[in-house]
């Protein structure tokens, strides 16, 4: 990918995206601060201003009183960064850099209230240009139910030609993409909060690579950026902006996915929430969204309707052996919330030996999933 004309000999030849990459590499440089800094200046001019360490009154409106300290910090950092070296390293790593206004910049982000000034991409950027995209988001601390719903939705949507947008976090995010990848169909779109060379969380590294291979990985952060708390909500606004519809599968009473919901509402994107058991803390946020008038997601058709593509996909045949007695009774007693052997022994009138073997049998046949000693029904 890197050709000779990518190697920049002197600073004057550096494209706008190169200056923006350097600016984004400054400590605690977010989209709002950058926008304030670029007010009436080209990125190259902004770089010179920052480097000089001059006071930055225009940034004060966004940052507040801390602006002097920040200007010094930026100036120090800027003196240590060589924009042309960063640029050629980024290009050499096979990372595509698109600035706002470039032809390949995602069209759906053009009228965003807070568009990313630059997007870094690994994979095929064309994957974003499908007719419909749905964001599937939710908590990292999810239940088996949430994971199953996310996987199932991701799979059915990808099959129906709808690109799945998600954040590649643990829990719901990862499950949605795993489902989409397994189903094939539309290419997945991952939007992450770290630099594209830093897979986070490490546990999802494989998934991360598979998404980059099958679709595209996007980030607002230049290479080498580690996980920072503030970058996750900022990343969520890009997810909301890319999606035509946002689906929240499971969310605790407070959590990152609610930022995505907020960002989606700001951008007039329809939000669908998956109803959950009222006892489940992992569904407290989603159930609350429903109470506030959010559209419930009771099946894939609800998403397709929200996208304006009405249709239905038949459920795949269940190949698990049907449970007999007393397993059926145990399965019913378990309900749909995580439960333990001890709790089951109070609900089912079976001798302990029979209960233990029944539960092990149900796990083996695929009706129960065991997680840390808790049993959860598998649909």
């Amino acid at each position: 990918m890197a050709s000779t004309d990518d190697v920049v000999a002197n600073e004057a030849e550096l494209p706008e995206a190169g200056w923006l990459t350097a600016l984004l590499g400054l400590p605690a440089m977010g989209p709002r601060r950058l926008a304030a800094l670029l007010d009436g200046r080209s990125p190259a001019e902004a770089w010179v201003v920052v480097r000089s360490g001059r006071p930055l009154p225009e940034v004060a409106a966004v940052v507040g009183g801390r602006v002097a300290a920040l200007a010094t910090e930026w100036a120090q950092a800027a003196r240590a960064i060589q924009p042309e070296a960063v640029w050629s390293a980024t290009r050499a790593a096979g990372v595509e850099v698109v600035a706002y206004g470039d032809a390949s910049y995602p069209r759906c982000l053009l009228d965003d209230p807070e568009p990313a000034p630059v997007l870094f991409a690994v994979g095929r950027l064309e994957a974003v240009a499908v007719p419909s995209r749905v964001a599937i988001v939710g908590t990292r601390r999810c239940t088996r139910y949430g994971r199953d719903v996310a996987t199932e939705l991701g799979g059915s949507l990808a099959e129906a030609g709808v690109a799945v947008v998600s954040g590649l976090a643990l829990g719901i995010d990862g499950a949605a993409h795993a489902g989409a990848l397994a189903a094939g169909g539309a290419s997945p779109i991952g939007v992450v909060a770290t630099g594209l060379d830093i897979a986070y969380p490490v546990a999802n590294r494989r998934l991360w690579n598979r998404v980059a291979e099958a679709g595209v990985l996007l980030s607002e952060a230049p290479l080498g950026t580690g996980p920072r708390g503030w970058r996750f909500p900022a990343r969520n606004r890009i997810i909301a902006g890319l999606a035509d519809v946002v689906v929240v599968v499971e969310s605790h009473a407070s959590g990152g996915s609610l930022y995505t919901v907020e960002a989606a509402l700001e951008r007039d994107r329809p939000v669908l929430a998956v109803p959950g058991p009222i006892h489940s803390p992992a569904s407290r946020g989603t159930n609350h969204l429903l109470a506030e008038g959010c559209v419930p997601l009771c099946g894939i058709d609800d998403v397709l309707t929200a996208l304006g593509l009405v249709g239905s996909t038949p459920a795949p045949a269940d190949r698990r052996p049907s449970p007999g007695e007393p397993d059926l009774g145990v399965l019913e007693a378990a309900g749909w919330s995580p439960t333990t052997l001890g709790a089951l022994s109070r609900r089912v009138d079976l001798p302990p030996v029979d209960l233990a073997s029944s539960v092990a049998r149900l796990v083996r046949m695929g009706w129960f999933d065991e997680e840390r000693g808790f049993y959860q029904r598998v649909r």
Partner: protein
Amino acid sequence: MLATVHAATLLGVRGHPVRVEVHVDNGLPAFNVVGLPDASCKEARDRVRAALVSSGFAWPSRRITVNLAPTGVPKAGAVLDLPMAVGLLVACGEVEPTSIEGMAFLGELGLDGSVRPIPGALPLVDAVEVDVVVVAPDNADEARLVTPKVAHPIPDLRSLVLALRGEEPWPETGSSTQEAASFEEPDLADVRGQRMARFAIEVAAAGAHHLLLIGPPGAGKSMLARRLPGLLPDLTDDQALEVSRIRSAAGEPLPTGGLFRRPPWRSPHHGASSAALVGGGSAAMHPGEISLAHGGVLFLDELGEFAPKVLDALRQPLEDGTVQISRVAGSADYPARVLLVAAMNPCPCGGSGAPGGCRCPEHVRLKYFRRVSGPLLDRFDLRIDVDLPEPVELLGGRDGEPSSAVAERVASARERARARGVTANVELGASALATAAPLSHEATRLLEATLHAGRLSARGLHRVRTVALTIADLTGSEALIGPDLIDAALGLRIDPFRPAGHGIH
């Protein structure tokens, strides 16, 4: 002038015969002890001198050399005070050399000449090479447990000399003033509800399977574990002697009836060092908690709070049933066949740990569980969750089945194990297990599938089969091991590590 006195010293939980040689000669007045004595052995010089003078004997202002033979064995403790004093008395001509022939002396001396009890009387008396032993009155009961030997209790140095000279008879039985704290073993009837956990404890007791209880604080994990020793049968004579020897060496008073007959219960705090748990430490090589629990139950509460290094030190003794401690000065073997019971919270925050139900980030939870290594976890044949009991069960409800009823079933299961040549099923080797518990065709296929799915290690396979056999013993089933028994054993084996997302299709 030379005198030789029989005695013994403690190395770990075993006694080693020692000969105390005392040589008194002309020269500058001195008192030297040679032959690998430890600090408390060297201090004996001051105690012996004061005790002799207080008892009205003259201190020889000559050159005294005490040699502790064999010189290669490290000597520890004050047990050699009395033999040194006796040797000096013989060497100075206060007592005839013939009067101490065939006699050994074991005891610590007070500065007033009194003879004080020493820890480990049982293994020490066992080790001496002669048939008559002189000990402190408080050690007499313990010394008499070593049957062919005769024990003379002696209160102080003065009466010892009178008895040796034949001027007075040996004092009669000095009855022990120490008494082991005896207590009622708590009864399983106190536990309300908890059907699964009760069953798991019964299986653990019947087959001597290590048991891991996982549950939130207040669920009754410790209460359940505390009731496990009460389900175990009495110790056999050999076991009782072995257990008593270990505990005697640790300085615990023996029960009034003689030997320890009930399985011990040890519950070390999670701050314990690996020396405290496994044994060793100083040159004296003390037995660790795992040896003190030999024949009984070792309970590790808050397993996740123990240092990982300490827990891993338990792995080898758990497998072999013995601990070998090696030091520069020598090595010692301790028996360490225990039933390990451990308890831990499902989550570091103390919540229930239900998926999606707690605020602990995944990495915090993982860090908590990583302290228990996979290989150690694999040694727990039974792993079960213990829920908080329901208020209805606590307030109303019937008493649970009493320990005596459960102990009967356990005893008959152990009876069946004895017919296989072991005390409990857990000791069965691979070939013995294959003969004792042949698998039915379906059970074999089921296990194959479980192994293929990666849910069982090779060690785990053996353990699951053993637990299935124990359950068969408890339910009185005689036939082949069928799939239901294998499933029951698998069901009592939850995996607290099993991560989320195992079944992404």
